[in-house]
């Protein structure tokens, strides 16, 4: 049985062989005469391949396949399939790329036909061919088929279906032993092909899974990185940022960055993520991007390795010695048979595709513009965005140092300074970076922007001095761009001008805040003049006017405000300038001899009429409305008529009702309180102040309000008939004041507390009996000891000193105790000023006045600081500044009773300057002010004598006697009329001055008589000036006078005096009556009548 079977099989095989042979022979016979036989073709193919004549071999193989195509014989088919596979390999390996499509066709036939020895390999090759020829759809399908076939060859995946006849025929063939299944690397490669194909087709979702397979299975870390990179690329394109986040850390851990394609992709993906705000994902990608040189160096090393691997010299055009060939295992470069020549080498060599690709990629990288700085800049932006400021500064610094002059460099330094100032608040480092930049960068926008950052920083911190320190940089700027494209009129140039305007404006603001009004005035004027049409022009003009107003330059300020109103009729300050113009008119009127406030009043009326709307959101509203009401109220009030007071009250009430800021209400309330005080309407006063407290609560000036309530109560007390009730009210006020002082006295700026202290002292001296005063002092002392607050402690101490009239002593103590005057309230400062004046210690006069000016500008106690300062300046013979200080003081306090000193000193200053006429008129002003009656008038009279005396001595000779005599008359009036003032000081001085005048006039006898009169005058004869008289008269005459005084003589108004000798040489004496004073005869008789 077995034999039979074998025989049958053998006969079947023989039949098939014979048949096929017959077919072959038939074919061969048919073509025998002029065509080679299949056998010859096969033989020739072998020869041509051996000779590396690939094109001819391919033609021969095609010829063979054509001839045998019709054969269905198993053997022929098998041979044809083998040859077909050889053809495929030749097409792929030994020809140019454009024959891959051809190879694909042959491959498909190979796959379709039976008896293929390499069906798996063919399928993967087909996928590659399709891919390489750009048929990505087909390549993906082919790769999938390859994988399917690999798992189950019976599926014949990727092959065309056989017809039933074919099926039947081929089923009879002896099946081939299938090649081995794909190795893992091959499977991964197929997945890569699928992924890459879909990626090329932009079928993002479909490419992710195969890439992921590669990433998870490949053993090549670079392939892994590349796959992840491509997945991320696809996810960005989709977009699907959530999934990206998963893969970024994995990618970051791979060395994929060394792959050129990955590096290039990293840049794109990172930029895409950055633009999407996916900073956390973009950051590691940016980090991964290798610097160009590093990447090129790495890949060139790889290229060398690859060349050696492919048996080429490591370097292009390298002359390789035999020994090196041995080392590198190099063979001669294959000459081109059919392929392209390497254009670069020109040697006609055909390079393997991998090498050509890598060289191309390296060239791509070399052709890229430098990107490292841009990457660093991007990373800096990310760090800045997420608040990693130190990292941002570091990266920006790197960028800046790479090329400080570049646009990016300038952006970086600006951003560095911005971060250091605004985010990290590190001034010193910001200055280190920024100032170095400003030192060298004088043009362009960035220098201005950096300067602006510093200005803005200091402004927010109220560091105006620091802003002023930037001025030299601003002055050194050149108004030009960084390059020639920036010309007058371009946007950048306009921005430069805008910044300059802003920076100079801020300089002026700084001066203003520092109370440097003159500098500020110049600064605002500069902005208004030099930057016409700038965004700050209107502001600068307004503040220019305001700085003039602060300097009491009413006329100039008024002109500026009018200018503003004309140029900016719709400007934001138009209501303000209208109002401030009124303030100027008020000031101008006040500087005249007979003030007429009509113009000012009209202006305030205009403001009131123009902006009557209390609603800020509606037209016709202005915040200056209440101020205008108060100012007009002041004018009405100053009229002193009952109608005026009524109108003033109405205006103040309107101001209170419309007040939008506490200060507006505060001013009007207390002005109203003053009116009520003046008109004895204490109940109204209390009511208005209490209403004010209710309305403004914590924002109100509570201490001042309490002061006024107490003061009104005390006023009420004066009208009480019941003494017990009156005393009880005093006690109540004392208690209220004490409580308020304790509560608010810790704030050095509480003016109301200082007013209460003053009032408390007044109450104590007027209405408290000894016991109550002692009790009050004890309480003050206990409170002072109990508190740790220095401000309050000092206030309590000065209150006690004022009650016990020991301020001078306290001032002395405080001068020794206090290292600085930061925590010192105005009354305490005033005490210190007082002792300084007494000691003629002017060393801290400027500081003390400065404290008042900056902290207690409205304090009444400031006048003492003015006095100290002007005395100091006078002592230093700094007459100009002294005059300025005095005028400042007078502008604040003018004719207040205790301000006579200012007028007197002003007159003296004018005398020192030789301006006799002004000196006289200023002294006469003192005499004309009712409030200054008393010692100021005495001093003014004496000073008038001085002026006349000086004018006589220094003036024209023909007027000498007349003026000296006039001076004598003033002196004489002093010691006749005012001898009791200042404990006789002025009288004594006047005696001596009179004697001096008489000496000038040559009236020696009168001169001696004046000395004699001095010694008789009990108001002055014990003063030091009397010693001058004694010396002049000599001991005998002095003894005589003393003897007479002991005998009862009290004056020499009518006395025996020495007469000038009628003739020269005589020395007689006779009794004559002294000249009576011109003004008032006060003679009381004498001993030598």
């Amino acid at each position: 049985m077995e034999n039979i079977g074998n025989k049958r099989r053998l006969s079947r095989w023989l039949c098939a062989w014979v048949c096929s042979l017959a077919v072959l022979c038939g074919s061969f016979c048919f073509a025998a005469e002029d065509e080679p036989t299949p056998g010859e073709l096969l033989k020739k193919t072998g020869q041509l391949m051996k000779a590396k004549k690939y094109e001819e071999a391919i033609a021969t193989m095609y010829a063979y396949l054509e001839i045998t195509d019709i054969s269905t014989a198993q053997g022929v088919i098998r041979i044809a399939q083998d040859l077909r596979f050889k053809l495929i390999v030749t097409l792929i390996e030994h020809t140019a790329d454009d024959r891959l499509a051809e190879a694909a066709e042959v491959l498909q036939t190979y796959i379709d036909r039976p008896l293929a020895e390499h069906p798996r390999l063919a399928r993967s090759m087909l996928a590659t061919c399709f891919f390489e020829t750009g048929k990505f759809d087909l390549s993906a399908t082919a790769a999938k088929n390859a994988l399917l076939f690999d798992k189950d060859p019976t599926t014949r995946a990727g092959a065309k279906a056989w017809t039933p006849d074919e099926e039947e025929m081929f089923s009879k063939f002896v099946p081939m032993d299938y090649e081995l299944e794909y190795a893992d690397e091959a499977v991964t490669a197929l997945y890569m092909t699928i992924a890459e194909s879909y990626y090329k087709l932009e079928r993002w979702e479909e490419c992710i899974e195969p890439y992921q397979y590669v990433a998870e299975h490949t053993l090549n870390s670079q392939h892994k990185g590349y796959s992840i990179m491509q997945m991320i690329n696809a996810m960005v394109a989709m977009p699907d940022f959530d999934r990206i986040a998963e893969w970024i850390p994995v990618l970051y851990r791979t060395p994929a960055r060394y792959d050129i394609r990955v590096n290039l992709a990293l840049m794109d993906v990172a930029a895409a993520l950055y633009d999407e705000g996916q900073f956390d994902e973009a950051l590691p990608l940016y980090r991964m991007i290798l610097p160009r040189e590093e990447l090129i160096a790495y890949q060139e090393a790889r290229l060398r390795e690859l060349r050696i691997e492919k048996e080429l010299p490591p370097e292009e055009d390298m002359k390789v010695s035999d020994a090196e060939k041995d080392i590198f295992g190099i063979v001669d470069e294959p000459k081109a048979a059919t392929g392209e020549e390497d254009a670069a080498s020109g040697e006609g060599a055909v390079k393997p595709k991998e090498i050509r690709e890598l060289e191309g990629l390296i060239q791509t990288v070399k052709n890229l513009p430098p990107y490292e700085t841009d990457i660093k800049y991007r990373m800096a932006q990310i760090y800045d965005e997420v608040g990693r400021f130190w990292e941002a500064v570091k990266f920006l610094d790197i960028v800046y140092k790479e090329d400080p002059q570049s646009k990016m460099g300038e952006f970086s330094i600006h951003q560095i300074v911005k971060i250091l100032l605004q985010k990290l608040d590190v001034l010193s480092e910001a200055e280190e970076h920024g100032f170095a930049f400003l030192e060298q960068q004088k043009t362009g926008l960035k220098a201005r922007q950096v300067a602006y950052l510093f200005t803005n920083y200091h402004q927010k911190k109220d560091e105006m001095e620091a802003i002023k320190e930037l001025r030299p940089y601003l002055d050194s700027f050149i108004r030009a761009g960084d390059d020639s494209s920036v010309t007058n009129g371009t946007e950048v140039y306009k921005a430069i001008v805008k910044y300059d305007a802003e920076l100079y404006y801020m300089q002026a603001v700084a001066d203003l805040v520092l109370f440097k009004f003159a500098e500020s005035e110049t600064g605002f004027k500069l902005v208004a003049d030099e930057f016409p049409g700038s965004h700050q022009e209107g502001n600068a003009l307004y503040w220019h006017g305001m700085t003039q107003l602060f300097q009491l330059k009413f006329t100039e300020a008024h002109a500026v405000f009018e200018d503003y109103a004309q140029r900016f009729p719709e400007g934001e300050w138009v209501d303000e300038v209208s109002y401030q113009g009124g303030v100027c008119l008020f000031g101008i009127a006040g500087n005249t001899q007979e003030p007429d406030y009509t113009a000012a009043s009209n202006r305030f009326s205009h403001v009131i009429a123009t902006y009557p709307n209390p609603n800020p959101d509606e037209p016709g509203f202005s915040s200056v409305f209440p101020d205008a009401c108060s100012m007009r109220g002041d004018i009405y009030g100053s009229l002193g008529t009952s109608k005026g007071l009524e109108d003033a009250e109405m205006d103040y009430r309107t101001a209170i009702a419309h007040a939008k800021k506490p200060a507006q209400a505060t001013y009007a309330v207390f002005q109203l309180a003053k009116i009520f005080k003046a008109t004895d309407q204490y109940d109204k006063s209390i009511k208005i102040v209490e209403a004010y407290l209710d309305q403004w609560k914590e924002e109100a000036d509570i201490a001042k309000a309490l002061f006024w309530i107490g003061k009104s109560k005390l006023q009420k007390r004066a009208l009480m008939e019941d003494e017990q009730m009156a005393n009880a009210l005093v006690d109540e006020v004392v208690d209220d004041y004490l409580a308020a002082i304790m509560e608010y006295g810790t704030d050095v700026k509480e003016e109301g507390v200082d007013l209460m202290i003053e009032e408390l002292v007044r109450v104590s001296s007027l209405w408290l009996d000894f016991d109550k005063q002692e009790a009050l002092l004890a309480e003050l002392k206990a409170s002072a000891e109990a508190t740790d607050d220095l401000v309050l402690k000092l206030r309590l101490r000065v209150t006690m000193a004022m009650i016990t009239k020991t301020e001078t002593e306290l001032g002395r103590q405080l001068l020794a105790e206090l290292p600085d005057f930061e925590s010192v309230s105005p009354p305490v400062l005033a005490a210190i000023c007082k002792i300084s004046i007494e000691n003629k210690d002017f060393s801290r006069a400027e500081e003390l006045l400065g404290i008042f000016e900056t902290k207690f500008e409205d304090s009444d106690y400031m006048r003492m600081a003015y006095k100290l300062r002007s005395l100091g300046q006078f002592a230093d013979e700094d007459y100009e500044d002294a005059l300025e200080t005095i005028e400042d003081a007078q502008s604040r306090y003018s004719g207040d009773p205790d301000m006579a000193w200012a007028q007197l000193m002003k007159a003296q200053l004018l005398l020192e300057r030789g301006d006799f006429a002004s000196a006289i008129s200023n002294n006469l002003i003192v005499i004309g002010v009712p409030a200054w009656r008393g010692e100021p008038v005495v001093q003014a009279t004496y000073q008038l004598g001085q002026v006349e005396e000086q004018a006589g001595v220094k003036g024209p000779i023909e007027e000498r006697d007349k003026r000296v005599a006039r001076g004598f008359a003033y002196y004489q009036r002093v010691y006749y009329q005012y001898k009791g003032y200042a404990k006789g000081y002025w009288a004594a001085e006047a005696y001596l001055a009179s004697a001096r005048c008489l000496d000038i006039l040559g009236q020696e006898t009168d001169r001696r008589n004046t000395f004699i009169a001095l010694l008789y005058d009990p108001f002055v004869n014990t003063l030091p000036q009397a010693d001058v008289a004694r010396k002049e008269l000599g001991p005998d005459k002095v003894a005589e006078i003393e003897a007479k005084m002991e005998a009862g003589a009290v004056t020499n108004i009518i006395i025996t005096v020495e007469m000038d000798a009628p003739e020269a040489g005589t020395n007689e004496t006779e009794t004559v009556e002294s000249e009576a004073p011109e003004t008032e005869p006060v003679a009381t008789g004498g001993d030598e009548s």
Partner: protein
Amino acid sequence: MKRLLFSLVVLSVAAASGQVAQSGTPARLEVVNGKVVKAFLQSMEDGILTFQQSKSTRNVPAPADKIRSLTFYPKYDSVAVEHSFNEGDYSSVITTLGPVMEPYWDYMAISNNLQTAFGMLVKSHLREEDYPKVQSASEVLMESSNPDLVVQGQVYAALVALSNTTTNGVVATNSLVLAETLRGEVASEAAGLYLQACIERAKGAPREASKVVAEMIANHGNDLDWMPQSELLSAYLYLDQAITNSAANCARQVQSIYGGSNVARDAEKFRAKLPVEEPATVEEPAKTEEAAETEEAAEPAEAEENTGQTGMQKE
């Protein structure tokens, strides 16, 4: 059958007698020349590894730098340990790995298959502030001929020194000196910068420390050995400077960039302890150069607003 039983008895007796004779830590030892020896490690002192070859009780001393690697055979679930570590569950790592590593601890200066596990264990001790253990590990590592391990040892030793604070929380002077000395000896620039930042922080100078970290990040952004903890340190430093949002954002980035690692988990824990975090500042992309350029002209408008700071602008 009898013969088989007899053979088994003989083998078991031999094995038992072998166990008695061969004490030490079993290991496969590969010498630099490629020779492989089955050995029982006896000790490692002063750079000398003493071992006994299998079936020999003779102690053989060998310079550690002549040993290419050691292979140990501990039994533990390395996947579970790695998982615990990456989850930041350090106590669990210590519980599991501590006893396992005990016999191998002294030999960690030599390259071996437990190096990664040892690294996880030491880091876990550091996180759990078991400084004596870290100190011990640092001493072992500093003995190594592998420069990377020496650097690790130096950094660990310095960190232990910096943990030596007084009751006021100030680092003891001598400890600071020691840390700075070690910092000077660290051969790796990245590790050195990380350590420098730690020292600055210990000195109470978080700003300086931040600058050092920034330097480290700028110069060694792809050094994944030292970057994660450096970046996490940066988050701590922002918190030290009371810039809470920056600290939170920095920690969030660590979580994202080093996702799946223990440092990412540490960052997560750090964030959880922070005060209430304001919304992340990533709403809008940062200004690119072009964008910034177009905004330039607009900036003075900002300036106008800012003048309000001094009350110079109308209300």
